[in-house]
Structure formats: C-alpha cells, structure tokens
C-alpha cells in the first residue's frame, strides 16, 4: 500500500517535471515562430533572410560572440536605434539603424528568433528580460 502511494507520488512528480520542461519548450517555440514573422516584417529587408547583412553597409546577425557580449543591450538597439561605429564579424560598420517602436513582447520574440537562428544558440529571450533591459537603456 505504502509502496503504491510512493510510486504514485513519484509518477506525479515526474509528470509535473516533464510538463514544466515542455512548458519552457512550448514558450521557446511560441517566441521563436512569432519572432520569425516579426523578423520578416521588420528586419529581413536590411539584415537578409539568412542574417547575412549587406556588404559593409549592414552588419550580419551571425556573429554569436558579438550578440552574447551585447545581450543586455540588444533590446535597446531595436527600441532606440543604433548609430555608432561597431565591429561585427571582424568588420566595422557605421551606418544607421533606425529606432523601431515595437512592443516589448515583439522585441522578446524577434530577439529569441535572431539569437537562435543563423548559427546562434542562446535560448529564449523572455519578456521579463526585455522589460528589465529596456529600463537600463542609455
């Protein structure tokens, strides 16, 4: 009897554990696929369908090191634009990216898409993270 109860609890814990994990995965998938649409509408013209950029005019989104180092300010780049000299993939860029006033949730989705496509693998960028990052924009 006791063993049965322990067994049932164990199974329950496993189910909860598994469903928690798949919740994360579901969230990732939802962000990622939503982000792919935002990317097509707001970013792809400039950065390209493969994140390849355009010569020395528009930087590629394939430099994982750059993206990781700037993880906390990427949301600010989108919200406020970017107008300074940067080095991406070993090349310098200094053209302007205009500010794009999209909702924080859209930013979270598109950043999840970008940072997990084109050879990048950085996991989900959550709405909470984006809201925190936006508060610290310079």
């Amino acid at each position, binding site marked *: 009897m006791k063993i049965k109860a322990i067994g049932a609890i164990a199974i329950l814990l496993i189910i909860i554990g598994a469903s928690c994990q798949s919740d994360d995965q579901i969230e990732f998938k939802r962000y990622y696929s939503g982000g792919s649409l935002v990317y097509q509408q707001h970013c792809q*013209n*400039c950065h*390209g369908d493969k994140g*390849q950029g*355009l*010569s*020395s*005019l*528009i930087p590629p989104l394939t430099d994982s090191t750059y993206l990781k180092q700037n993880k906390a300010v990427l949301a600010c780049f989108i919200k406020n634009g970017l107008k300074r000299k940067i080095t991406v993939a070993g090349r310098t860029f200094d*053209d*302007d990216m*205009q500010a794009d006033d999209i909702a924080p949730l859209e930013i979270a989705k598109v950043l999840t898409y970008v940072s997990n496509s084109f050879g990048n693998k950085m996991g989900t960028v959550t709405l909470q993270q984006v809201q925190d990052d936006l508060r610290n924009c310079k």
Partner: protein
Amino acid sequence: MRKLWIGIVILMLFNACKSNTKTALPILGYKTPVTKTVNGKTVTDTEYATIPPFKFVNQYADTITQKNLDGKIYVADFFFTTCPSICPVMHRNMLNVYKEFKDDDNFRIISHTIDPKYDTVPVLKRYADKLGIAGNTWWLLHGEKGDTYKIAKSYLQSVSEKNPKGEYIHDGFFILIDKQKRIRGTYEGTDPAEVTKLIADIKTLKADPDQITAK
C-alpha cells in the same frame, strides 16, 4: 493512313526544331507604327520606344550620357542610399548581377538616386565602396530631381516625392535595356528568383545576333 503518319512525324520534327531555338526576348514599351517610303513603296514599320538622351554624374564625378552606354547592354534601377525598405534587398540581389558580368566591358548597371539632395556624389562614392563595387561596371547616378523623375517614366517606372510620412514611394524593378536602347524586360528587384531570370535573360540577349552586330 500512312500519309497521315508521315504528316504527324514531320509536324513533330518541325515542332522539335522550333523549341530548340532559344526564344528571343520581347521588346517592351510603347510602339508607334511609322510609314516610310522604301524603293518607291510605302511600308508600315513598328518603331519601339527607346530611352531618350540624358546627362547625369556618377560616383566618380564623371559625366555620364547615353553615349557612354552606346554598344552596351545595361540594367537600370531607382534607389536612394538611406532607403530602409526595399533598397537593401534590391542591391543585395543586384550584387549577383554585378558579380556575374563585372568583367564584361559591354555591360553596365546604372542606379539612379531619387534623393539627390542627400545622395551627393561623395555619398554615392561612400555607398559604392561599402557595397563593395569598384571599377565602371556599376554606376550610381546623381542628377536633377526633375531629370531623374522624367527618365524614370521612359523606363516605365514610377517614382514620386516624399509622402507625408517622409518616405519615398518607388518601384523596385530592374529594367533590362539592349544596345538599341529598347526595353527588353522588367524584373522585380526584391525577388531573388526574378533576378536569377534577369541574369539568364542578359545571357540570352548577349547571344542575340541582333545584339552581337549592334554597335
């Protein structure tokens, strides 16, 4: 019955031959019938629209007129360097055309800026350098706004002044012009598949006897 079979075979052979010859590109634009007198006889001919004479300045500050394109097949488009929407896509695709034909001195690409106030010659030069184009295959042309808008019409393109949101509305087409300055094709410059077709059509046009002999 036998005769019918022979007839069918001949027909099939005839059709096979026909499909082997590459179809020539059509000639686009307005056509006007002109009546001429040849050897005392009146004949009606079709005259195709051609690109009229022009004068612009390229990224090297050289003056470029229709004479600089004599004997050349070329592709034209309209853009501006600060265009956030379709221009980066167009020029990402145009780079493929450039790479394919950059060693051919009888081929050119001309991109007219529709924002001459901002896109001065030094701005165009800087854009060309950053785009990674060199030499004389691809010219970025600066000119009076009125001249550019007028020439756009002869390429069947519509461009206009900034709308209230401060955006320029313009077509994203690449237009293929032959050595007689006639329009031979228009291609959606934002669509990689259409640009691949443009590259194939340029090859077809270059091989056209009509173009090989043209000066």
